[in-house]
């Protein structure tokens, strides 16, 4: 004999009729489950979307890259501590010293010269355009080998050009388009901070994963030789370093860099580092620990929603059992077993919450479309499946007691019930 000898179609119809008959309670039931499912849909899509974007973004800097700054690694919230602000700058020499380490493939310094010595934006101009909104960085030609930026046209500047203070520039793809819309920028002249530069190369467009359509730093950038950058902003010491570990030697590279920098920056034995190393992997794991906080919030909100739905469905089913006592008596008289009655009410309860779940899925799905306009996001497959299973499961769990009450009713007394 089949386990469920119940008429599913009939039970579904009954459930919908019950839903219509008890509008307020049905609304509460459906509403709670809906909120739970919408929460799962939205937050899971945010989490997986942002996570994927961040991962791609970080990987595009190279998984072997190590970013070194004078600040502690990690995601900063609030102001830096006084000690951190007082730290001395990294230097060009630090970057050069790191290249000697056995586990380090290459190491280049960067000098950020967005602002000049007086805190004013440095102006960039071509014959047709002038703008201050371009990122300017000084670096060394070795940077090309890190693979973070790829030259599409022309070439990167050379060590010779750096050493001889030649005013040459490699421009990002948006800079190329914005300043030289009618032809190749390579070989053209450009004004930077009042000096004439020659464009020697154009970079390939870097994809942006995290904030598509936002301001486009990664391509709106000009690289100039490190020494030249220092001339544009005399006295600037705001240096950070990108090192690349040799293949498979990430951990060794991190240890060697730490040891060397501790010596060079005279950190006393037993004291914490006064600099920070960041890798894609480290950043990602930091970032993920923040995401897991969001995930916990999701679990809490959706459980509260599902609980409200569960209590609603229990209430509605208890009423339904009382109202249909006579029907239960009739069903038993014509041969329904206890388990048949039990299943009937369980299916009915699950239909109610499952209906709420489906409504929640549809609304959540629409909302994730809107969300996609703001954030990189996609709905992971487990979210709608999990949401629906949870809503049906809530019906089954909270329907258990009412269904058991119904199954236990005495057929004779039920038949006599008015």
């Amino acid at each position, binding site marked *: 004999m089949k386990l469920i000898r119940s*008429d599913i179609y*009939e039970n579904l*119809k*009954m459930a919908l009729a019950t839903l219509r008959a008890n509008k307020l309670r049905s609304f509460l039931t459906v509403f709670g489950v809906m909120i739970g499912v919408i929460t799962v849909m939205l937050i899971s899509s945010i989490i997986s979307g942002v996570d994927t974007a961040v991962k791609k973004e970080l990987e595009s800097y190279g998984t072997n890259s190590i970013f070194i700054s004078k600040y502690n690694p990690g995601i900063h919230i609030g102001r830096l501590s006084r000690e951190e602000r007082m730290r001395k700058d990294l230097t060009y020499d630090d970057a050069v010293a790191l290249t000697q380490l056995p586990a380090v493939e290459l190491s280049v310094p960067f000098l950020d010269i967005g602002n000049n010595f007086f805190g004013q934006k440095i102006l960039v101009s071509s014959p047709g355009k002038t703008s201050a909104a371009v990122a300017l960085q000084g670096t060394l030609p070795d940077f090309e080998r890190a693979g973070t930026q790829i030259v599409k046209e022309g070439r990167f500047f050379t060590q010779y050009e750096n050493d001889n203070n030649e005013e040459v520039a490699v421009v990002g793809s948006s800079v190329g388009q914005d300043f030289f819309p009618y032809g190749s920028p390579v070989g053209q002249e450009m004004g930077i901070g009042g000096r004439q530069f020659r464009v020697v190369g154009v970079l390939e467009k870097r994809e942006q994963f995290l904030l598509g359509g936002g301001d486009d730093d990664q391509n709106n950038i000009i690289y100039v030789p490190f020494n030249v950058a220092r001339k544009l902003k005399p006295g600037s010491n705001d240096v950070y370093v990108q090192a690349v570990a040799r293949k498979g030697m990430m951990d060794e590279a991190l240890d060697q860099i730490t040891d060397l920098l501790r010596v060079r920056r005279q950190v006393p034995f037993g004291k914490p580092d006064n600099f920070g190393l960041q890798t894609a992997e480290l950043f990602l794991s930091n970032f993920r620990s923040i995401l897991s906080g969001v995930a916990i919030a999701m679990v809490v909100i959706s459980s509260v929603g599902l609980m409200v739905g569960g209590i609603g469905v229990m209430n509605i089913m208890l009423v339904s059992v009382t109202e249909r006592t006579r029907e239960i008596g009739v069903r038993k008289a*014509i*041969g329904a077993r*206890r388990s*048949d009655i039990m299943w009937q009410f369980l299916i009915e309860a699950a239909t109610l919450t499952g209906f709420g779940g489906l409504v929640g899925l549809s609304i959540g799905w629409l909302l994730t479309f809107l969300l996609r306009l703001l954030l990189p996001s996609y709905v992971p497959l487990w979210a709608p499946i999990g949401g629906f299973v949870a809503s049906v499961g809530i019906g089954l769990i909270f329907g258990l007691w009412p269904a058991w009450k119904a199954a236990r009713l005495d057929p004779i007394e039920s*038949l006599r019930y008015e």
Partner: protein
Amino acid sequence: MSDVTLAAPPTPSALPEQPVSAHDANSLISMRDIWKTYEMGSEQVHALHGVSFDIPKGEYIAIIGPSGSGKSTLMNLIGCLDTPSKGEYWLNAKNVSLMDDDELARIRNQEVGFVFQTFNLLARATALHNVELPLIYGGIGSSQRHEMAKEALRAVDLSDRITHRPNELSGGQRQRVAIARALVNHPSILLADEPTGALDTHTSMEIMDLFERLHGEGNTIIVVTHEHDIAERAHRVISIRDGLIEKDEKIR
């Protein structure tokens, strides 16, 4: 029905203590010294005290008695909705008194067809669906179920009403749907408790005509009533009073 050997009607068990004979293996129903006692606080109410009788297959029996005499209690026992406090009940040579809940449900589904005074149809379901219900619990697949239910509705002349809901049917039609539902599983007995109690005289007679026809087609029918003209349509009348059989006579 002449092949059934009719034993002399059992003597009314005026003295419940007297030894009772073993059950009759040839009978469809064989009740031996059946007691039904309800506990009402500290008090005991004996709804039945020591009832014994046999019903062979194919009989048409009326159980008559005044209100409170124990008719419904007896009917619930025959229909396996309830089990006796004491005594043995054999149905189709199976001892019902020993059965558990699921076995009783199976008996109600397969062996018994109930007809109630107030029809007890599912209000939201069509006539066809109401008739299909016992087949659902019998585990019969949907296409076969449809055919059997249509056949049962045809047998009560309601082929043209199968998609109607109870509130679109007259009282007599509703009771015929209920009878079709009772018959659809081809049960051993059709049990009707005051089946005409909610109907006017004319419709009552139509329903009784239907019972007569169903009996003619070989069905075993037990009608519980307190009305003599309904009881007189049966072939055998068992009168009960205060939980005891007062009279058990063949009238046809």
